[in-house]
């Protein structure tokens, strides 16, 4: 495997390989996907680590994300500034966690952060209501929404504090063997 690419230095590629679940080839392919979103903003040469951030609108328009109801939360969770504007590192990180090779605990951690709309490290009733609205817009009445959220907290809250902590969420994930395959975006 000769070092034919000129985008990254060998050390950079090694670092990417060690910190994500992707191979060299996939990292380069993802770099080109990132660049295709805005060829005029992203240079072809990353050896001197340019500080390039793509705005959320471009990320959210990718075919893998554009129909996902949670695309904004995903971008916010993985971006450094919390607004959804992603550097290449954030971009790789995002797809690495969402790939099929990431372990269950890591995915559960990030899924928890995605569903935690107010970023208080707990999924409270308001967060659940927002999640529900994103998934079933206008289909359920207000009463039904409230009841569903109460039911979720009833079923999943282990330490009885009225909201879901990360441990409660992880315990719930353990009971859902499909989670590893559904929390997965192919790119």
């Amino acid at each position, binding site marked *: 495997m000769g070092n034919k690419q000129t985008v990254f230095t060998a050390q950079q590629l090694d670092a990417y390989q060690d910190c994500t679940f992707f191979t060299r080839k996939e990292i380069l392919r993802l770099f080109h996907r990132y660049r295709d979103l805005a060829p005029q903003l992203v240079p072809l040469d990353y050896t001197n680590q340019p500080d390039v951030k793509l705005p959320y609108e471009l990320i959210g328009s990718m075919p893998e994300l554009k129909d996902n109801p949670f695309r904004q939360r995903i971008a916010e969770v993985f971006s450094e500034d919390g607004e959804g504007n992603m550097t290449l590192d954030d971009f790789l990180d995002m797809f690495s966690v969402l790939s099929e090779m990431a372990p269950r605990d890591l995915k559960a951690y990030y899924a928890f952060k995605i569903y935690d709309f107010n970023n208080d490290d707990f999924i409270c009733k308001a967060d659940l209501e927002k999640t529900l609205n994103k998934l079933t817009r206008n289909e359920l009445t207000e009463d039904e929404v409230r009841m569903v959220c109460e039911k979720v907290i009833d079923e999943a809250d282990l330490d009885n504090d009225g909201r879901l902590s990360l441990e409660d969420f992880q315990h719930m994930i353990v*009971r859902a063997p499909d989670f590893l395959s559904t929390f997965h975006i192919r790119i």
Partner: protein
Amino acid sequence: MRRSIYAGHGTWRNFGNLGLTEDEIEEEVENETVQLVRELVELPSRACRQRIRGLPMNFNERRNIRSQVFSAKLSKKSRLPTCCTDFSEQASRSFRRFGAGLVTARRFLVIWQNTLKEIGGTFGTSVLSYFQFLKWLLMFNVFSLLINFCFITLPQIIHAPNITHATGFRGLELLTGVGYFNQTVFFYGGYDGEVIETPPPYNMQLAYFFTMAAYFLLCGISLIYSMAKSFQTNFVLHSASVSGGAWRLLCSWDFSVVNEKAVQHNKNNLCVQLKESLSERIQRRAVLSLSERMENVARHLLSWLISVLLAVGCCAAVYFLLQDQVVSNISQDPDNLVTEASTLAVPVVVSLINLVVPLLFSLISRVDQRSNPRTKIYINILRNVLLKMSILGILCHHWMTDVPTSVSCWESYVGQSVYRLVIVDFIFSLFGSFFGEFLRNIIGTKLIPSLGVPEFDIATNVLDLINAQTLAWIGIYFSPLLPVIQFIKLFLIFYLKKVSLSMNCQVPRQSGRAAQMQTVYIALLFFPSYVGALSLVAYTVWSLKPSELCGPFQGLSRPFQAVQDWADTVQAIPGSQWISWIFYNVIKNELFFYLLTLIVLVLTYFIWQVAQGRKQLIRTLREQIANEGKDKAFLLNKLQSTQKQRRPSGISISQDVSTVPSFTQNWMNTFPLDM
């Protein structure tokens, strides 16, 4: 350690209002990082990398930790002379790159990567599991093809015996497998049992036996391993009864679906499921009166009775047809096209039964109304499996008892029967796709719009695949190159189903529990499919007399005789006594298997007891968590009230007053606060 990593950074913020300053918190975070780096340095390099990849922090922090860990490791190794460390670093780095390159190259060999991604994106993970199952079955056949070709067919072709073709090639051979193909290496009859004298001598009998044995052994190991892994991930951890389904809101949204229509469809499904689970909660399940319960029981019994009668009827039909064929076989004229075509009667009838009766079963299942859709699916699968396996059982019984006595070169005959079944099954699955999906789609959209677009019925399709693979496994001993046909068949079915799916079907409604169904399918593939085929082949090898005139085992009293003779000859060679010892005291000795079974049973009982103990432990721990939650609430309440008492007395607490959040009664909702 893991817990503190996941809860670490946030938790320290939470404790802000307990009296720690910002600096103290930063110090704690630093300490944690240092501890993490120290722990990572201890690990071997591969495990270290896996851990780094799994750290829940953003990319820059992870890169930071990685560089710290590597410099720490380097400084540890720097006691050695620098040329050695440089060399070892470079060697390990190039080795790692080579390994990564191998992984990338292997991905090239993975076929259908993009197609599977497309299907998963449009139809979701449950439909995708069917196609992944198909791909997995394909691997079995490719492996079988390779070893059969290399170890049996190639030597035979190189050292070809005189093959006399009784008849020229006519088109019908492709369907029936007789005539031109009769004496070729395609079937058992085309092999002979000579010892090929090229140095070293290659014993065809032993090669045939050991190749088959090795293949079945490896298949069995692979199946057991997949079954155990799948069972562990999908059933064991699911032990606690999940009452209701509202938790599904958070766990089951399929992120991999990228098609807009499919996303909308999934949203509708989720809505329907949530409404169902809500309505279950609202109306307590009505206590059924005695008459209603009796009616239910009567319905169940009736539907089972009808299904069993139907299955028995089909088996009887096949049995009588087979008996009829035996009679006509005795007067078989190889040149007569009509008799040759009449051999297709049995496969056509069998495939027709396999196509039509499952539809009847699904109609019958509407008679007994079960409220639980999962039980419905299981019962449906059970009935279909019973039907298919009993028909195969009748066929195998016929092949093992009637055929060896009435046909010369009976193994080739059995191979040809299996070949016919495989081909006709494929043709009928083409028809099934056409009528089941294409026409149904047209009826559903144009003629009777209320029926709607058909759903992709995963269970029926998977059972068809399992049936096809059972036939292939049965046929391998009698027709070593049958995996070629099976490979082509599965390959074409993949594309057929994919096209049919995209043109005709919609996403199935009950899309949950795909993972559990996967375990059930693998279990069905192991038993009765693989176990049945294996016992059939084992019975043939152990007890049946091979035909006198053709095949590698001609002249022996049973095929296993070849191995026995070989063990005897090996005993004469000095220094190889141990092979003979193993053969007589381990393989042929019943006591050994008895002891082995006893040990396995004892181990199983022991492990079961351990599992029971762990269940009890989980229950206790869960209660403990609930209690600790109450303790935490109580303690924080007490802290709040204590601090409230302290503040009016003016005792200075060592913290920056501007960062002390004001405690409100509703502290739980404002917890934690920004600093």
